[in-house]
């Protein structure tokens, strides 16, 4: 399995969570997902393309996403990803887990 750059930087599963969250806005193609994450995080979280697609693939395998070819605004064919119901449920679980952990870490570090 791919050990990607981002996974070394982000806690495991974080990239997936970000992708899922991004896709709650609507169907997007891979490039747009990467752009969105980079923009929202002020360029801090740079998603290497080399880890983006494997992550998308993992999510497809789990049935949390579906993929479909469609026309992009530039009249080009692009592969659009859509979050499934199961994906949304998983996102909720992950986010609440993340919140708990983040909160706990914050407390330990004396910042909460």
């Amino acid at each position: 399995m791919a050990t990607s750059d981002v996974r070394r930087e982000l806690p495991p599963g974080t990239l997936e969570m970000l992708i899922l969250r991004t896709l709650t806005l609507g169907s997007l193609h891979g490039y747009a997902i990467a752009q969105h994450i980079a923009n929202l995080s002020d360029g801090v979280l740079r998603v290497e393309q080399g880890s983006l697609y494997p992550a998308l693939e993992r999510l497809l395998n789990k049935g949390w996403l579906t993929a479909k070819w469609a026309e992009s605004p530039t009249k080009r064919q692009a592969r659009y990803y859509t979050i499934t119901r199961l994906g949304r449920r998983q996102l909720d679980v992950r986010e609440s887990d993340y919140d708990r952990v983040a909160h706990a870490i914050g407390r330990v570090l004396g910042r909460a």
Partner: protein
Amino acid sequence: MSRLYGLRHRLYVLLRGDRYDDDVRRELRFHRELDRVAGEENSLGNETYYREEVRRMTLHLWTDRVRQDLAYAWRGLRRAPGFTVAIALMLGLGVGVNAAMYSLLDRVFVRVPGGVVRPDEVRRVYVDLPHQRFTMEGVPYPWVQAIERADSTVRLSAFSAPESVLVRADRRRLSAMRSLVTADYFSLLGVRPERGRFFAAEENDIATATPVAVLSDAFWRRGFAADPAVLGRRVKIGTTQYTIVGVAQPAFSGIDLDAVDVWSPANNHDAQPGLPGPWYTTFSSSFRMIARVHSAGADQRIATVGTAVLRPIKLQYFISDSTLQVLTGPIIEAIGPMKQKSEVTVATRVAGVAVLVLVIVMANVMSLLLLRATRRQREIAVRRALGISRGRLVQQVVTESLCLAALGAVVATVFSIWASRMLRALFFPNAHWALADGASRAIGGLEPRVVLFVLVVSVLLGFAGGLVPALQALRPDLSESLKAGMSSTSYRSSRLRNTLLVSQVALCVVLLTGAGLFIRSLDNVRSIGTGFDGRDQFFATPTFDEPASHRDAVRAAFPLVADRLRSLPEIASVGYASLTPLRELSIHTVFLEDRDSVYQLKGPRLPLYTSVTPDYFRTVGLRLETGRDFSSADGAGGAPVTIVSARAAKVLWPGESPIGKCLFLGTRDAPCSRVVGVVSDAHETGIIERPFSQFYVPFAQAPKDDPSSLAVRARPGQSAAARRETEKVFRDLIPDMSGISVRTFDTIVEAELRPWRLGATLFSALGLLALVIAAIGVYAVVAYGASQRTHEIVIRVALGAQRRDVMDLVVRDGVGTVGVGIGVGIAIALLLGRLIASLLFGVLPHDPSVLIGAAVVLCAVGMMACFVPARRAARLEPASALRAE
């Protein structure tokens, strides 16, 4: 539902790899282009590498998991070889028996005869006689002709039931099944000749016998080593030389279960001696009719037209029935309107039993897996705590049970080959079992359908067998399982486990009851007297290669043989008759003074007729009730005399003495034949029959009759010597006979017992199998219970409990469950009894002694299964057992 998207995606990658590659390539190209537009460097790097990576991940996720699960399952199974082997064997036997039954029933009920074109259009045509509650499959040729002529739109053909004949080719004798067929037979069915031809139009002319023959492919291979020069060769069947003109296509062997080896034109039918007119105008021929229907109304048309033309036809020796009705049925005989052959009925019931055995196997395998899962609760709890998901866990457990099922499938396949061979030989020894299309013949007895059956059933069982225990195992609370450890949990009896055990025991009771009922029936049938006394008695007939040419010699020899044998010390008495009992019968018209012919009277069934020599009754063991036996004075010149059976006397002259009454045999203007005696009733057609009215006349007064076989009664204990002498005398007097055939009542009756013997054998075999499996089940559960209670037991022992107390403790649980099972089983047996009631004889399906017997056997076996682990528990040494904790 979303999970399905994932599955779909994985399948897509696996199955449409090329298209998926293309997807990824296009997607990455798109990304790169956008990168370029945004002025960023190409961050994708080696594109091929990522493509491979993405693709491998999908496959990996799958294959890795499967490989992991398989390895895990294999480790688990190897760790408990006894358990693994036991389950594989049980599954194998259970599924194998069912596969064998499936292949049998498939052939009888589902598979259409091979080689037939559009078999769904082919109909068998029957004649139903509602008055006599009888459906005729074979009808006299004049009927075939009448229907054929009545409606030119009906395409009709006919064939005679396969009969066993001796085919002589050069010096070899081959036994074969032959069928005579009318003009259209092969073309109606759409069968092709593989070599040569079928019958030409002029060879089908009914009035002139044309001695040509077509061989089946199988017979061509068996009898003629597939010799291509077989066409034009001559073989002898009976007294006639036949020329072989063709070989049928390999798939075709007739349309009945019994395979046909040789076909000849119908005009080779033997003329019946003593009947007026050629055979095709009399009642004596028997042909089965087939028709091909093209339109929806055709069935109805055949029925209407047939019924209309057959009703007015009067045939000699046929009791006309004004309610006669022509019926059509499918080409598969077993689903037609004929009464099922008892073998077929027995086969369906045995198949039902096989399914029950499978249910028992299933219950047992499930409860064993359940025990195993319970035993591994701690392991499972640890794994869960380490973060394995429920889904993965279930996957693993199911993989394990699928592995078991696969092992079982291997056993089942091997076992089914053997079992189906045995079942075929038992049920339908003469049937043709090759596959419909000759090209894909079964390899080593393996039929693709049967293998598929085994696989499907095994996989289903594997899933079901694994899933239930897996879900059960997931239920318990994690922390409790971890804390409790393996051995000190108090023994909680699971409801599911008990249900499984109860159902095993119950079904086992059902099977044993079935076996008991069949055994009782067999006994009952066997103990019916036929009226004859078969001890020290046999029938002997000289055999010839060409019987017809020796008729006169045989006629002349019989009295001489009888005279010579009578003087020998080994022999008590000798006689002969025109018929051999239970093998042949002859129906005759009998008229009474001032009354209608006998068969139209209400009481008696068809009047049967036999001509016998003096002493014949004594020889076969019939008693003279009143009057006298025939004597040498009742010769051709003497006054005509008759002896009637007790049944005939009672029906025709109730309350009167029959002696001296006048009968007219054959026609009303025959000379009066006086009744001189009454002889005890005897069976004529089989073991089970209502008595017929029998009329016997002196052999000397029946000049048209031929002796059928010589009845010989040996002095007690001298049977073997008497047989030798009989053969010697026959050989002296008929030097050119080819041999002598000897029959006893036992061999004649044996064939009759077949259905019951079949039922008794198979029910017993399957019942025994079920019993063993249920015993294993009870043992496993009780032993498990005991092992779970080790702690409790040793403490009790330490506190002074005696061995007896410990054994009571362990046995009580198991025996209780077995008891409930027996009760439920008896209830089910009572409900299901109706299904086999028609197959039983002289015993009711709820026969108490059989039910009690089955219960007692199970009780005993159950006790044994409980007793073994109980004794082991009672022998526990408290100190060492506690130390082992």
